[in-house]
């Protein structure tokens, strides 16, 4: 097996490098929250906060998984429709095949892992550029979701308890929907994975210098497949959360979610050229996206302008990142 290898990237603190960028992102989040709380008295109510967090879960979990892929210098465009395929497969397992909930949920997650594995295989073994490999996977997943579901939604009405996965509350008396808890658990898992395990070390290492990593005796292809597979499992979890929240698997949804997730990753300070990034950053990035959307909606800003504002925020976030890198270089 591979020899333990010190890589070029700096020793990670808690959840990975890029502390300044994280701090900036966190500061922007706080400023946004303060701004919206002053602008509308309805913003800082618990039911709204819980609404914001719940609306972060699906995009957020997608973004967490894809952070790993982006740190390797890759990209995953298949997460949006891949998520849809996972929710459809969950529907097939639970509704059409009448399997127990646990099996159905695991089946959905494994579908995601399989999608990730195939993408990883295309990227590492077949040497197809990640953009193209996952673009193709995006189409395949979209098509399969429609074919498998017969182009009509699968409803979970006869699967009691399925909607509780995202909307129920496991801690009695505390009105926190499970979906939110699952999101934060995934943040924790993703964070530990990236900063405390060998997977994380190789993720950074491949992203900062793939050739050097290979030359130091690490089986880069194998680790890439592992990383894409892990990211795929996150897609699967997002698929289950989505299905649970809507209590149905909607085969026509999902397009465009990948770009929102990638935007969250980028706002969180992960570099699209690889080698740098963090899970906490992505979490903050996803929260910035949903706080911004929610706040603008609460202020009844016309939707056309909401998207303009979000676009501008992405430019600012990435520009700050460019500035910071320029200083370091």
């Amino acid at each position: 097996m591979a020899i333990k290898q010190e890589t070029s990237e700096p020793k990670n603190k808690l959840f990975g490098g890029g502390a300044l960028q994280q701090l900036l992102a966190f500061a922007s989040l706080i400023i946004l929250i303060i701004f919206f709380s002053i602008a509308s008295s309805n913003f800082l109510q618990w039911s709204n906060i819980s609404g914001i967090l719940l609306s972060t879960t699906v995009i957020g979990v997608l973004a967490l998984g894809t952070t790993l892929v982006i740190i390797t210098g890759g990209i995953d465009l298949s997460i949006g429709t891949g998520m849809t395929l996972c929710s459809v497969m969950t529907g097939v397992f639970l509704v059409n095949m009448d399997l127990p909930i646990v099996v159905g949920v695991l089946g959905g997650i494994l579908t995601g892992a399989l999608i990730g594995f195939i993408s990883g295989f295309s990227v590492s073994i077949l040497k197809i550029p990640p953009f193209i490999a996952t673009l193709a996977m995006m189409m395949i997943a979209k098509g399969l979701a429609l074919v498998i579901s017969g182009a009509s939604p699968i409803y979970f009405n006869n699967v009691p308890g399925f909607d509780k996965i995202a909307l129920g509350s496991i801690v009695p008396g505390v009105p926190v929907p499970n979906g939110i808890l699952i999101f934060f658990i995934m943040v924790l898992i993703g964070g530990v994975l990236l900063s405390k395990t060998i997977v994380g070390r190789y993720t950074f290492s491949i992203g900062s210098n793939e050739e050097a990593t290979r030359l130091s005796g690490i089986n880069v292809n194998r680790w890439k497949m592992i990383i894409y597979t892990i990211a795929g499992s996150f897609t699967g979890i997002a698929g289950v959360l989505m299905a649970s929240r809507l209590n149905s698997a909607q085969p026509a949804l999902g397009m465009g979610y990948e770009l929102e997730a990638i935007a969250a990753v980028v706002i969180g300070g992960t570099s699209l050229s690889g080698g740098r990034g963090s899970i906490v950053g992505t979490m903050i990035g996803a929260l910035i996206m949903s706080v911004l959307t929610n706040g603008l909606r609460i202020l009844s800003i016309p939707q056309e302008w909401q998207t303009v504002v979000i676009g501008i925020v992405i430019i600012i976030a990435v520009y700050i990142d460019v500035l910071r890198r320029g200083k370091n270089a």
Partner: protein
Amino acid sequence: MRKYLLTLLTVLFAVFVLSACSGGSDSDTSTEGAEGEDVDMDKTYVALVSKGFQHQFWQSVKEGAEQAAEEFDVEVTFEGPEDESQVDKQMEMFRNALDRNPDAIGFAALDSQASTPLLEETVERDIPVIAFDSGVDSDIPLTTASTNNYDAAALAAEKMAELIDGKGKVAVIVHDQTSVTGVDRRDGFVETIENDFPDIEIVDIQYGGGDHLESTDLTKAIIQAHPDINGVYGANEGSAIGVVNAVRELNKAGEIVVIGFDSGQQQIDAIKEGLMAGAITQSPVGIGYETVKAAVEALEGKELPDIIDTGFYWYDADNIDDEEIQAAIYE
């Protein structure tokens, strides 16, 4: 060089295999409809190019078209892009449909301007065009088989006013701000409220793209911003389900009057559970049926009215099991 040749050969082989497969498969399982299907040369052939395909609404339109095809003994194909922003894809489908030499064309334009050159070609080639659903903004189609969305939305507004006793705050969730259905279903509702019910205030109009999740989150934000809101109207299936989800997640069932549009399993359930007061349904089967029927009549040289109203209905817990409603709604 060899590498390119090999690639080319692989692609050609893949295309060959795929086309061989699609010849044998049932059109129900393909996502984009009629391409590659054989067309019987003797029968009258009507090609329908729709705005969508995979949504249940379009599947019901297709069903209506097939009913008419059987009744009038004509050949019908039905195709449409995956989502309603793919104008270019629809143009391609229109092009392909024309290349198959149809006797008549049924067309629901995503963008009437973009389709002008193709519509002009139909005039040159003497192929009658029947517009359906949101129609085509042009003089070329002989008639338009569609729901009067403005009137349908006005009915939704009247029902809303009735259910909140003619006063209070309401919000509107629409699928998009550019399509004819989006605009008519918004304006029919908003203008009816403004003109006839001065004590009702429309506090917000937002657009969720018909995406269930997006519509859920934005309705929640609106309810947060206006906690004393009395009613919310969702202008299509995705929007309406979003409103229902939002009301359910915020535990406001019974406090907020929800009015939907179109049908689908979840709206039907919401009405039966009492989460939704009722909804407007078009008659998608009727749209498909009337389109093909109009095409047949046009080919027979019959006079057609400018607009064929394919009808709409209000349905709620009381009449949901009636025969005419059951024929119009789909699960």
